[in-house]
């Protein structure tokens, strides 16, 4: 089915934030915001939930630690124990001290890379991906708000235009999409 998207462009992050506040209070659903840098405090206004990547990072780290621990135990204690400089390697604990650095490094390695990869995948930002920002200036100094009529049944396009006018935008652009 066809739909209409309105791109409202502001030349200042504060301006966009204020107008967003107003619109949301009037029940307008803002479906997306494009900005050249993170606008602090915009997320709760337009209802973007906080990411859970942090938790993922923790889990990746945990995996790394486990792998390192089990691995080193297997290599040094179980599979082929050797007398290296007379150092005790009868049990994991005997030899544990020597394993600390690598356990740490491997944990960090897994956490960092695991999270980074997940981040890129979730964003669908990968080599060769096409850019989706409506206007090239949004990566320079312009801030764009995307509003879809379908998501705002209650409000007629005319009313919406009214509201937007009040916010004193920099540019307004409508697109038919189907």
């Amino acid at each position: 089915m066809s739909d209409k998207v309105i791109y409202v462009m502001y030349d200042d992050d504060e301006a966009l934030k204020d107008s967003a506040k107003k619109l949301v209070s009037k029940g307008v659903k803002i479906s997306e915001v494009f900005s050249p840098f993170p606008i602090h405090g915009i997320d709760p206004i337009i209802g973007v939930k906080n990411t859970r990547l942090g938790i993922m990072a923790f889990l990746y780290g945990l995996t790394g630690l486990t792998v390192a621990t089990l691995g080193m135990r297997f290599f040094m204690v179980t599979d082929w124990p050797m007398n290296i400089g007379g150092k005790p390697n009868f049990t994991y604990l005997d030899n544990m001290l020597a394993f600390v650095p690598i356990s740490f490094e491997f944990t960090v390695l897994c956490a960092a890379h695991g999270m980074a990869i997940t981040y890129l995948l979730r964003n669908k930002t990968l080599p060769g991906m096409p850019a989706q920002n409506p206007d090239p200036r949004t990566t320079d100094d312009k801030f764009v708000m995307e509003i879809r009529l379908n998501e705002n049944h209650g409000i007629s396009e005319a009313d919406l235009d009214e509201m937007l006018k009040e916010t004193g935008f920099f540019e307004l652009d409508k697109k038919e999409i189907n």
Partner: protein
Amino acid sequence: MQKEAAIREPLILGHKTYHDITEDVCRPIEDKAPKMWYTLFGIALIIGLYGVGSICYLLGTGIGVWGLNKTIGWAWDITNFVWWVGIGHAGTLISAVLLLFRQKWRMAINRSAEAMTIFAVFMAGMFPLIHMGRLWVGYWVLPLPNQFGSLWVNFNSPLLWDVFAISTYLSVSLVFWYIGLIPDFATIRDRAKKPLAKKMYSILSFGWSGRAKHWNRFELVSLVLAGLATPLVFSVHSIVSFDFATSVIPGWHTTIFPPYFVAGAVFSGFAMVQTLLLVMRKAMGLEAYIHTKHVEYMNIVIMVTGSIVGTAYITELFISWYSGVEYESYAFINRATGPYWWAYWSMMTCNVISPQLMWIPKLRRSLLFTFFISIVVNIGMWFERYVIIVTSIHRDYIPAAWSMHFPSHIDIAVYVGTIGLFFVFFLLFARFFPVLALNEVKTILKGSGQSYKESPDYHKHH
């Protein structure tokens, strides 16, 4: 949006708008490169290739082409390794630790500092590889079973810890750096006129669109990576120091090494950052973003870490006497008065005395002086490693085995060559990458930009 106290000097001078910032950063990338750039690049390339040639000769003939001998198994190779790793500490420290401490002044320098870090660690990583007698079986340091099954590496060996530490540090720094680069590449992409440039930058920018959700993730990822990178910065050089601290050689077998090495690393790292940035800001017209304030902050870091290093030297000296261990005390007497006294004293002057001058505000604000000191410090830190490594093993336990070390011309060529390669990489970076973290700098424009601080509505807020 949180604002700074008015009394603080603005971090961005002049009346800049978001667009000005974009312009300033993208100009060098979009314009034709100046002659100077080509000249420097040419020189760096020649030196670099000379180094590569020497390395090929080394690999073809044997480690014997270096000046090592039966007593001194490591000299310039590992000295250079530790020196480069040390230099490679500033970047991640700046972007990670300072990020955690919400130090906004980092934003002007972190991008290039990180670039420097990564290239420095490249150079560092090369030495453990080429110093091997049999590079072609170097992959045996990875825990791979051999064709008969059980033949594992030795997890007790600090050298193996190094393998993990360095590779982790390098790759994590790389990721951290690139994640930050993506949005800025997008900026360049969206401005690019030439089709090729557009193609390249759109590949590099991974199709970044600056959605609110993405920015939300972006900030968290940066924060977590910073959190992970911070202990990493400290661990890496601690582990490098284990190479020596866990040995039995007097002068190496020292528990003070980890903190001492880390401080030294930060010390030399910031010095190198200074050396590079002071040139870059002029060459690329970034005076507005990197100015006295930043330099002064960094000088303070140099001063503090320099003092820590100095304290470490004195402590070592004292302990060697206090321990009453014959070999220990002789090792240090020999450093100061033995055949390598000149190395020891140039280290002392460069690393202990010179940073103390930074107590004088006038000096630490003088860019010229800073530049001079930054060079001095890097020389000093090279000598520190040389002193630790060579003067410790050249006279250790058995006097009959005592020896001297004389570098061969290949030693020198390889070292100078890495410096050349380093600049090749850095110049390419300066030419094609955004040398300032665009998106970050823009976020502080209002907080600490001169124009906003002076604007009436700024004061209204307080």
